[in-house]
C-alpha cells in the first residue's frame, strides 16, 4: 500500500499551532484524506517473542483453538452468500465472516510462527485434517434457517467477545493486539445478532416460533464453550489465555437481557406448553434430551471418551465443511492468485 495519503497533508506548523482550518480538522493524527485510505496494521510494532515462562507449544495450540473457531464460523457464514433472504443481510453476514477470517489469519499465523514448524496460515487452514482442528463444535454444525444462524451468531459472538475482552490484557502482546482489534468487530457481530433475535422473537407468531427453534437447536452446544481445555487453564493461570469458565456469568447475563427483550423463554427452560398452569410440575416433566457432549459422534483415531472440539473430536459436519474449504488449495498445491 502506498503512503500517498500523507503526501497530501500540509506540513506540520511550528509551536503546535494549526496553519489553517483544514489542518486543525485533521488534528495531526489522521492520515485519511480520501475514501478507502488510512488502514492500520493491528500488529504494527508488537513484540512477537513468546513471553517468558510460557510453553511455546501450548501457546501455539491455544492460538489454533481461537483461530479455528473464527475460521470455521466464518465458513458457515460465508455459506449464506447468494442464499440470504435479502441482499443487505447477505452483505452483513459476509462482512462478519470476513472479520472472523481476518482474526483467523492472525491467530493461525501466530500459531505457525510460535510452534516452530514454520507452517503459515494457509498451510494450517488448508492442509490439516478434521482431527487436527481445535474449534468448538458450535462453529461447525451445519446452517439451518436464518433464525438458526442469528441464534448461533449471538451465542458465538457473546462468548467470543467475553473472551477477547479478557484477552486484551494478555501477557502475550500478539494475543492482546489481536483481541483489541477483535473486540470492536465482535461487539458489532453480537449487536447484529441480538438485533435479529429480538426482531424475530418479538415479531410475528411464526417468526417467534422459528427463532425459539433456532435457539433450542444451538443450546446443547453451549456447555462445551465453557469447558476449558487443560492448556487453556494452564495458560489462563499464566496470564496469557482467557479462562472460558470465567466468562460464563457475563454470557448468561447478556443472553438473559437479549431473551427478555425478545420476549422469548430461555432455551434451557421447559417449554411453556409442557408446563400448563406455569407451576412446578413442569420442571419434573420430560425434557428434550440433549446430545451428550462428552460423546463425540465421530470418534477419530486416538480420540477418547469425553473429548471435545478442543481435543480434535468433531461432528461429521466438519468433514464436509473442510472438504469444501480446502478443495481448491489441495487440488492446486502452492497455487497463487
Amino acid at each position, binding site marked *: 500500500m502506498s503512503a500517498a495519503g500523507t503526501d497530501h497533508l500540509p506540513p506540520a506548523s511550528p509551536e503546535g499551532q494549526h496553519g489553517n482550518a483544514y489542518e486543525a480538522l485533521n488534528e495531526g493524527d489522521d492520515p485519511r484524506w480520501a*475514501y*478507502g485510505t488510512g488502514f492500520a496494521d493491528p500488529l504494527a510494532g508488537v513484540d512477537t517473542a513468546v513471553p517468558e515462562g510460557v510453553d511455546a507449544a501450548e501457546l501455539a495450540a491455544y492460538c489454533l483453538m481461537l483461530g479455528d473457531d473464527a475460521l470455521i464460523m466464518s465458513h458457515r457464514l460465508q455459506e449464506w452468500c447468494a442464499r440470504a433472504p435479502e441482499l443487505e443481510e447477505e452483505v452483513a453476514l459476509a462482512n462478519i465472516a470476513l472479520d472472523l477470517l481476518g482474526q483467523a489469519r492472525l491467530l493461525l499465523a501466530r500459531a505457525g510462527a510460535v510452534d516452530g514448524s514454520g507452517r503459515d496460515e494457509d498451510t494450517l487452514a488448508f492442509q490439516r485434517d478434521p482431527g487436527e482442528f481445535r474449534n468448538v463444535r458450535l462453529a461447525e454444525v451445519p446452517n439451518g434457517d436464518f433464525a438458526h444462524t442469528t441464534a448461533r451468531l449471538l451465542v458465538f459472538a457473546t462468548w467470543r467477545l467475553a473472551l477477547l475482552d479478557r484477552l486484551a490484557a494478555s501477557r502475550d502482546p500478539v494475543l492482546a493486539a489481536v483481541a483489541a482489534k477483535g473486540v470492536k468487530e465482535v461487539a458489532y457481530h453480537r449487536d447484529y445478532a441480538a438485533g435479529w433475535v429480538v426482531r424475530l422473537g418479538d415479531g410475528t407468531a411464526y417468526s417467534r416460533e422459528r427463532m425459539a427453534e433456532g435457539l433450542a437447536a444451538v443450546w446443547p452446544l453451549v456447555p462445551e464453550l465453557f469447558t476449558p481445555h487443560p492448556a487453556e487453564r494452564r495458560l489462563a493461570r499464566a496470564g496469557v489465555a482467557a479462562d472460558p469458565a470465567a466468562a460464563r456469568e457475563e454470557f448468561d447475563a447478556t443472553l438473559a437481557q437479549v431473551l427478555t427483550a425478545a420476549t422469548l423463554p430461555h432455551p434451557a427452560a421447559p417449554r411453556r406448553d409442557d408446563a400448563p398452569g406455569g407451576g412446578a410440575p413442569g420442571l419434573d416433566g420430560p425434557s428434550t434430551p440433549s446430545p451428550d457432549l462428552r460423546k463425540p459422534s465421530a470418534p477419530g483415531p486416538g480420540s477418547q471418551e469425553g473429548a471435545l472440539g478442543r481435543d480434535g473430536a468433531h461432528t461429521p459436519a466438519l468433514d464436509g465443511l473442510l472438504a469444501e474449504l480446502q478443495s481448491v488449495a489441495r487440488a492446486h498445491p502452492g497455487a497463487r492468485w
Partner: protein
Amino acid sequence: MSEWPLYEVFVRSKRGLNHVHVGSLHAADDETALRHARDLYTRRNEGVSIWVVRSEHITATSPDEKDPFFAPSGDKVYRHPTFYAIPDDVPHM
C-alpha cells in the same frame, strides 16, 4: 414477503467534510437502515458518520423543470468565485 422500503444513504468521509450521497438500500426500519448502510457503504474505511432517510421523504426537482430551474445560472460568470487565488495548502477544493 412485502418489500422493504427504500432508503438513501449519505456518508461523511471524515470530520469537517460534508455528508455525500453514496447510494441506496432496502431496510425494514430506520435503525436497520443505518446498520445496512454501515455494512454496505463503509466497508472500506469510507466513513465516520452516516445519515439515512426514506427515499419517499426526499423532494426532488423534476427533469421537466430543468430549464427554468438551472439554465438561468449558466451565463452569470460574476457569481463564481474565480477571481481569488486558492492557496496550495487548502485541500478538498
